[in-house]
């Protein structure tokens, strides 16, 4: 088999898994859209305009604009994390979906790749929804905001990888609490979604450099506000390290789990 054949063969399998998931998603499109549009609206109106009254501008930007840019980034994280843990675990263990698929020519690596695709896809859905809302509210400053999509794509892989690893290692749903309490929630609060990280003590500012969400926020915010992005390659590099190392590790752990 030539390299091209192998790539074609591999991606077909991953595509099947992505297709499976999107077919299921389409059956529940109502609740899904409710979540994608409803949640950010509540944040923007409730926190953005509410707290915005008290906070005023941040570095010359209205608080609601500041928050909208943060929420696009954090929604990529929450979407990929929830899908990568709860939904993947459901297919992996209680539903035995993977077990059934593994009796076909499709391999575990293709299943995991398909799940990555789907996590990224879902993160893009939610970012798109927020971008639409933000644009309608007049919070987006320039066309350069479209660069948000590739950033969300890389970020969602960076978030999906640890989530899928957690799913593969957890004996039950309850164990996800560790991951959400120790990783996802701290990132949500500390990585610059709600306030600039420069307002934290300097030790904290250094610590959050190790967390992927910080870099997603640092990239997405200026892109939406029509500003120049600082340290672009540094931020992208960190996200790529998370995505790359995470993918390799996730594949390895899934292979161990499914191939005795």
């Amino acid at each position, binding site marked *: 088999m030539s390299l091209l054949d192998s790539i074609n063969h591999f991606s*077909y*399998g991953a595509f*099947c898994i992505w*297709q*499976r998931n999107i*077919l*299921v998603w389409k*059956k529940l499109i109502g609740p899904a859209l409710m979540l994608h549009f409803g949640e950010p609206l509540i944040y923007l109106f409730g926190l953005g305009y509410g707290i915005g009254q008290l906070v005023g501008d941040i570095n010359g930007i209205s608080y609601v604009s500041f928050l909208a840019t943060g929420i696009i980034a954090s929604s990529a994280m929450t979407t990929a994390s929830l899908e990568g843990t709860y939904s993947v675990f459901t297919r992996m263990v209680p*539903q*035995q*979906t993977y*077990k*059934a*698929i*593994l*009796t*076909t*020519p*499709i*391999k575990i690596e293709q299943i995991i790749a398909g799940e990555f695709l789907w996590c990224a896809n879902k993160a893009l859905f939610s970012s798109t929804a927020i971008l639409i809302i933000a644009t309608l509210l007049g919070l987006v400053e320039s066309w350069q905001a479209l660069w948000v999509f590739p950033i969300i794509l890389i970020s969602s892989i960076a978030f999906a990888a640890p989530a899928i690893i957690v799913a593969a290692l957890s004996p039950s749903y309850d164990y996800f609490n560790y991951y959400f309490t120790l990783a996802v929630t701290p990132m949500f609060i500390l990585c610059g979604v709600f306030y600039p990280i420069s307002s934290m003590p300097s030790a904290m500012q250094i610590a959050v450099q190790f967390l992927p969400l910080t870099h997603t926020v640092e990239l997405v915010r200026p892109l939406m506000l029509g500003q120049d992005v600082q340290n672009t390659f540094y931020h992208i590099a960190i996200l790529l390290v998370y995505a790359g190392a995470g993918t390799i590790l996730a594949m390895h752990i899934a292979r161990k789990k*499914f*191939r*005795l």
Partner: protein
Amino acid sequence: MIIQLKNISKIINNRIIVNNLSFTMRAGHCFGLLGPNGAGKTTTINMILGLITPSSGQLTVFDMQQPRHGSKIRKKIGVVSQEDNLDPDFSVFENLIMHGRYFRLAKDQIVDQANSLLASMELLKHKDLKPLQLSGGMRRRLSIARALMNTPELIVLDEPTTGLDPQVRHLIWERLRELRNQGTSILLTTHYMEEAERLCDELMILDQGIAIESGTPRELINQHIEPHVFELDKSAAQTHSLKNTASQRIEMIGDTVYIYTTQSHLVRQHLDALSDDQQIHYLHRPANLEDVFLKITGRDLDE
């Protein structure tokens, strides 16, 4: 040869699950792996499918090394797993369609195949239901239909009729016989001797990971067991103090006494004579694989 195992062993957590197993399965045959729970049947199947790597030994399927060629080999196999693992998010029909996609079949071929399999498994009128809305028997029929989506050369069924009512069991046997007549090879695990006897050309009896016997069902029965069996209640047997004689061999398992014999008329006369003063209820039947298993392992199969 469709399947060839040479000295296959599998050790998990320092426990020998499959112990030095060797057998070959010929194309077009129905091969049965027989044994009680925990014998290692499912583990053996998973090694054949390339889903578990043997600890030692040589394993080829369609003359290709397993697990190295797992994907290529599985393209030609249909699998009915021991537990139903239908996709609960899809309807009956969608389950088949999605499965066809995993095999990369052409779109129209998938739809035609799905419809004709649903018809043959008597599931057409349930095609829009979800698996959880089906009865156990329907789910199992759907699992079999799903396994046939890729028109496999070999179909592997892990305890396909366990827990099903006799009607469904007969429908499944019927379909399996049709498949074999069309030339499909069948690998079957079961702990129902009747199933093995009806369907299998060749059998291997597994116990605690070890192959203890193999041959055709007839061979096994003729080799190990007298052709006639009388079953009677333990209490009845005790009052009449039945004994081993030249014409009868007596085994006692649980509350049942089994009399094995080549000369059924002698035993029958004897029992009927005893019945003169007190009625003895007994069952006279031909020997079956259950008896073979009993004799070889000294245990009931369902224990």
